[in-house]
Structure formats: C-alpha cells, structure tokens
C-alpha cells in the first residue's frame, strides 16, 4: 500500500493521527453550526409552517424527527461497516476509530427512531408497539449496534477490539438486507417510503422541504458528533505517542 507514494501521500497524511486530530478539531464548528441552523429551520418548518395532514392532523409532524433519525441510523451502520472494512484490509487505525465512534451515535439514532415511531403509533395505529416489519428490523438494527458495542467492550486490548468488531460489523452488513427482507415477508404494516418512491415524493413541497432540511441537519449533526468522538478515540489509541506529549506541553 505504501509503495505507490504519489497517489497515497495525501491519504496517509490524513490518516496520520496527529494530522487528523488537528483537522477534525478545526472541522467541528463547520459541522456543528450548520447542523444547529438546519435542525432549527426544519423544526420551525415542520411544526409551524407545514400544514397538518388531512387524516393524521398534527400527529404526522413527528416524521420531522422520526424519518431523519431512521435514515441516519442506517447511514451510521453503513459508515461504520465501510470504516471497519478499510481498517481491516489496510490496517488503518483511524478507520477503526471512526467505526468505533459511529456505533454509539448510530445506536442513539436508532433509539430515537423507535421512540418517536412508538409515540406516533399509539394515536395512529392504536398501539405503542406492533411487530411490523420495519419496526422489527429497526429493533434488530439496535440489537446489532448493541452487540457491536458489547463485543468492543469485552476486549482489554484496543487493537483486538478494533479487528474483532470490524469482522462483526461486516457480517452484520451482509445480514441487514436478509433480516429486513425476512421481516418484510413476515409481517408488514408500516407505510411505504414517502420520499424515495417511484414517481417522486408523495408529499407537497411545504411538507417536504422541512423533512429534507432536517435530514441534512441530522447528517451534519452526525459529522460533528463523529469528529468529537473520533478525536476521543484517537487520544485513547495514541496516549503514549510523542506528538500528544508535545501538544500537552504547548
């Protein structure tokens, strides 16, 4: 990997812990500020500006939390698994750090999705919880996150925790579609996808834009949280490195 210097220099420079630590630190406000603005805008647009749904009335407004969180719960898993694959194949510590940092964030988004969906389900479906396909697969996704985190915490040695949990994340990626498909076939009550569907979103613009802005805001939020957490992971991994001692002294 290191032989092809020309192509890989930038990559290795970015992947070097001290460099990344500095860059990530500088990036946090660039992610956090847009995240705050976008989420506030989406909340205002969703709660105040958008009209109520003709059937669900105001209860539908919970989608402005529920749907972005659901997207992010999947996106976090994909990021985690891709980072794990990179870390496993090229033995890049920073990729493992990103995977480790993404898991709790993704688990939180999954939990938010489930709780928000449950709050919506009681008035609309008439039940807090039902064994519907999407609900069940989201729940299993939460279990996968928890399993990943449990496996990490079972190792004393970080290198082994990194590599073992990376294998698990990849096994999970193969299984996520299978699990999703099997529960869909098993029992489906949840509505289809609103935005990503054949023939364009089934939603008027004034309802749709706060949703999309919210999704973007949540993505920025994830990026900001990931930066903070990866910096933490880098500190743990590099606690004996000389650049950290210099940083402390300065």
């Amino acid at each position: 990997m290191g032989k092809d210097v020309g192509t890989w220099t930038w990559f290795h420079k970015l992947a070097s812990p001290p460099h990344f630590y500095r860059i990530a630190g500088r990036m946090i406000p660039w992610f956090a500020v847009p995240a705050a603005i976008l989420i506030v805008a989406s909340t205002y647009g969703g709660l105040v500006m958008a009209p109520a749904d003709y059937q669900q009335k105001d209860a539908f407004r919970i989608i402005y939390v529920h749907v972005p969180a659901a997207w992010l719960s999947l996106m976090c898993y994909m990021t985690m698994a891709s980072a794990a694959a990179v870390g496993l194949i090229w033995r890049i510590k920073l990729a493992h750090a990103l995977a480790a940092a993404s898991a709790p964030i993704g688990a939180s988004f999954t939990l938010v999705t489930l709780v928000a969906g449950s709050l919506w389900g009681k008035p609309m479906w008439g039940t807090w919880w039902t064994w519907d396909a999407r609900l069940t697969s989201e729940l299993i996704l939460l279990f996968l996150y928890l399993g990943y985190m449990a496996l990490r915490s079972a190792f004393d040695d970080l290198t082994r925790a990194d590599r073992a949990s990376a294998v698990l994340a990849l096994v999970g990626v193969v299984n996520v579609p299978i699990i999703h498909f099997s529960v869909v076939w098993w029992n489906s009550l949840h509505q289809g996808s609103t935005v990503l569907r054949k023939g364009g979103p089934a939603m008027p613009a004034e309802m749709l834009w706060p949703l999309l802005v919210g999704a973007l805001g949540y993505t920025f939020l994830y990026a900001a949280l990931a930066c903070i957490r990866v910096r933490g992971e880098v500190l743990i991994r590099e606690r004996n490195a000389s650049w950290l001692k210099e940083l402390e002294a300065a």
Partner: protein
Amino acid sequence: MTTLTTSLPRAAWLVLERDLRLAFRRWEQVTHPVMFFLMVATLFPLALSPEPALLRTIAPGVVWVGALLSALLALESLFRADLEDGTLEQLTLSGQPLAWLLLAKTLAHWLLSGLPLVVAAPLIAAGLAAPGEAVGTLMLSLALGTGVLSFIGSVGAALTLGSRRGSVLLSLLVLPLAMPVLIFGARATDQAMRGEVADGPLWLLAAMLILSATLSPLATAAAVRVSLE
C-alpha cells in the same frame, strides 16, 4: 519453499475426522445440548397448559426457540478447547487455507450438535401433539436451519474467543443474526402442521445455508486470527 503434499479435501477431512473421534471419546458434547433441547420443550406444557389444541398452536415456535437455544449452548465448545490446548494455533499454521479447515470444523460441529437436535425433534413433536405428517418437514427445516446456525455461530464463537465474558456475549452477537432462520424455520413447520406444502420457506432456508456456508468460513478465519493475536 517447502510444499505441502496433502490435498485440500484430505486436509479438511482430517480436521473433521479428528473432531468426530474426540466426540466419541467424550459424549457430553453431543448429549448435553440434546438433553437441554428436550427439557426446554418440556417446560412449555408445564408453564402453559397440557391442552393438545394449545400445544399444537405453539409447537413450531417451541421447537424452533428450543433448537436455537440448544445450538447456541453448543457453540461455546466450538473453538474454546482448541484455543486452550494450542491446537487452534497449529491449525492456522498448517499451511492449508484456514477458511477451508474451519468449514470442515464447523461441519463436524453441526454433525455433533445440530444433527442430534434433528433426530430428537420427532420426540418433541409427539410431546406437543403435532400431527405426524408434519414431522418430515420439521426435521428437514431443522436440518437446514441448524446448519445456518452453526455457520453464523462459528463467526460469533471465534469472535468471542479472545474476550473476557464469552457465553452471554456470544448470544448477544448471534441471536439478532439468527432471527431470519427462526422466522422461516418456524413458518415452514407451521405450514406443514396445517397440512400445507412448505416449499417456500424450505427453499429460503436452503438459500441461507448456501450463503452462510460460502461467506462465514472467511469471516470465521479472520476472527480466529484476531483471537490468536
């Protein structure tokens, strides 16, 4: 460079044969999970009601949850002893592709822990008042399903080898991944008990078996190498 003269199938067979021979020296590995399976199935009539109509309704679920838990229980022993006496290290140094040897080892594990569950299933079916016609489908679905469980479980067993709390952690990792097997296995059994042809779920179980047999040895090999670090 030194070359090996033992062919790959022969090497895989040797791994399989050794585990079978070991099991014949020590029967607990084979008998304990089956006993557990039978006892779990006994709990349900005691906890619910011995009424045949009710038992017939819950039978597919009971058999499959019991099989899942027993398979999980047996997984603990898949690599643990080999890690402790050093033979797992030697397996990775045999010069043969590790994934193949682990495929053979997982197959041996299925023969010793999955197959007995399949054989014991008719007993439980009778105890739960399941109709006789359904027993064939039940056994076939269990044979395919426990195979998938062995393959998925081998990854989990290898991953938890190097960790402190082995067995509970193993369940946490394997159970979410095993849910599709439970869904289709119980569905096949259910359909067969209603006198329907259960081709659909059985084919799906077969597809899962092929997929897990293809991919899981690679993941298991990676996990074993991590555990030896």
